[in-house]
């Protein structure tokens, strides 16, 4: 017998998914309350992914009220997992739906809390700097072994794929002809971990995805002697310096950067010989949501 109400007859698949995520939520709360915070965050992230799956199934089945509750639950789990930007996106989606006034008040408050944290993280220059260092090492456009990226557009577009691994997967599907190679590249992409990445969101600017913090990041990297920035005619040239190589080596040994290192390697192999203008055009051609976004609009991954 189904233990759901008659207007909410759900398939076995949905019921199983609900059971699985319910267990995860209880487990995550248990870990949190017993002080195992790091593990709690991991289980909350897993619960959030499951809850998003449940929400999608409920929406597909036309159960809008339950879909919205599930969405809020997924957002709350992401928030508990520390993934504020994803939480914020889902809270926004829930607010766009028809939810009760009581729930709306709570969601508005939760969303504001996420925004405060996101804004604080927004100023996190070192994480952005780390990504630039990896790009310089793995996506250099110099064949002579120097780690150099020529052009701000090229750097920003490569950074875009590093921050949006799902889009990188789409790009690989479009660019790599050999099925075996395609599979090999796609297997390397840490899509699951990617949702946990910080400071990944970019905005739509004149030539596509952009991060308004770039100039701060370049100043930071230059002041630390990690990179040098020069100009060749009107084009910026970014070069990894000796201290930068040492920093990259430390990043490569840090487990938390595994995902980024794999992404940067893959990105270099797939788009290593693309010019900035080619990357820009490729993004416009393959990602309509980005091409059509208004100037200044935040670019979400899904």
């Amino acid at each position, binding site marked *: 017998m189904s233990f759901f109400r008659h207007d909410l007859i759900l398939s076995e698949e949905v019921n199983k998914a609900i059971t699985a995520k319910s267990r995860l*939520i209880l487990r995550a*709360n248990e870990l949190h309350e017993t002080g195992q915070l790091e593990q709690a965050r991991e289980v909350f992230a897993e619960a959030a992914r499951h809850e998003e799956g449940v929400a999608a199934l409920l929406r597909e089945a036309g159960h809008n009220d339950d879909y919205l*509750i599930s969405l809020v639950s997924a957002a709350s789990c992401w928030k508990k997992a520390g993934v504020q930007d994803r939480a914020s996106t889902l809270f926004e989606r829930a607010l766009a739906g028809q939810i009760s006034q009581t729930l709306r008040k709570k969601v508005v408050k939760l969303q504001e809390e996420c925004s405060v944290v996101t804004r604080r993280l927004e100023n996190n220059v070192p994480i952005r700097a780390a990504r630039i260092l990896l790009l310089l090492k793995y996506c250099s456009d110099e064949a002579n072994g120097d780690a150099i990226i020529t052009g701000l557009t090229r750097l920003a577009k490569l950074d875009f794929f590093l921050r949006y691994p799902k889009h990188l997967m789409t790009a690989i599907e479009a660019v790599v002809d050999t099925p075996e190679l395609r599979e090999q590249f796609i297997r390397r992409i840490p899509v699951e971990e990617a949702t946990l990445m910080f400071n990944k969101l970019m905005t739509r600017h004149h030539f596509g995805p952009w991060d308004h913090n770039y100039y701060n990041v370049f100043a930071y990297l230059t002041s630390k002697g990690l990179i040098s920035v020069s100009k060749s005619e009107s084009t910026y040239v970014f070069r990894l310096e000796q201290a930068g190589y040492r920093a990259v080596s430390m990043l490569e040994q840090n487990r938390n950067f595994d995902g980024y290192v794999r992404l940067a390697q893959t990105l270099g192999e797939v788009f290593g010989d693309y010019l900035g203008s080619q990357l820009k055009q490729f993004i416009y051609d393959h990602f309509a949501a980005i091409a059509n976004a208004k100037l200044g609009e935040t670019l979400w991954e899904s």
Partner: protein
Amino acid sequence: MPDPLSFNVENIPVWHDILSTAYAARLIVIGRRNSSPEKITLQLETSQIDSPCLNGGCSASLELTWGTTYDDECRRSEASVGQTRLVEDAAVGVAGVLFPNVVDARFVNVVQIGDKFDYLMGTPQGQFGLEISGSEKRSGLNALHQKKRKQLLANVKGKDGYVVVCGFREKRVIFSFHRFGEETA
């Protein structure tokens, strides 16, 4: 005197897919502390609960028994879980006995809203909210019930639901059903 309603709490994870053995273990820990090594008897007081177990009445004696199956889990819980959490989880255990034995319902869904998680019960008639709380104080169970009732009636999901509050030292359980939108005063 009618026979008590007697249930073995070790069956809680069997009755409810989403409840782990921890809830049974924590109920056993609290039961042992407040009663005896193998059982605790609580006075069950109900409101708006229609159940064949109650023979048309609104109270019964609820006897919760256990064996030694969860002794290891009990030791782990005592060592790692705070007192408040132990008592709250023991109350979830009591709810895990009342459903499906007194009311035909199961714990089917847990949703996280902000920092709190809420249980949803599935019954053949529909899906319902549930508020649960436990206490080891000597008194105050009625006030605790009122507090949980208000919380239930303010639930963000707009669902009717149940309240289960357990006074393990008072040896009482209040079990009630409420319509969303009913008077909260």
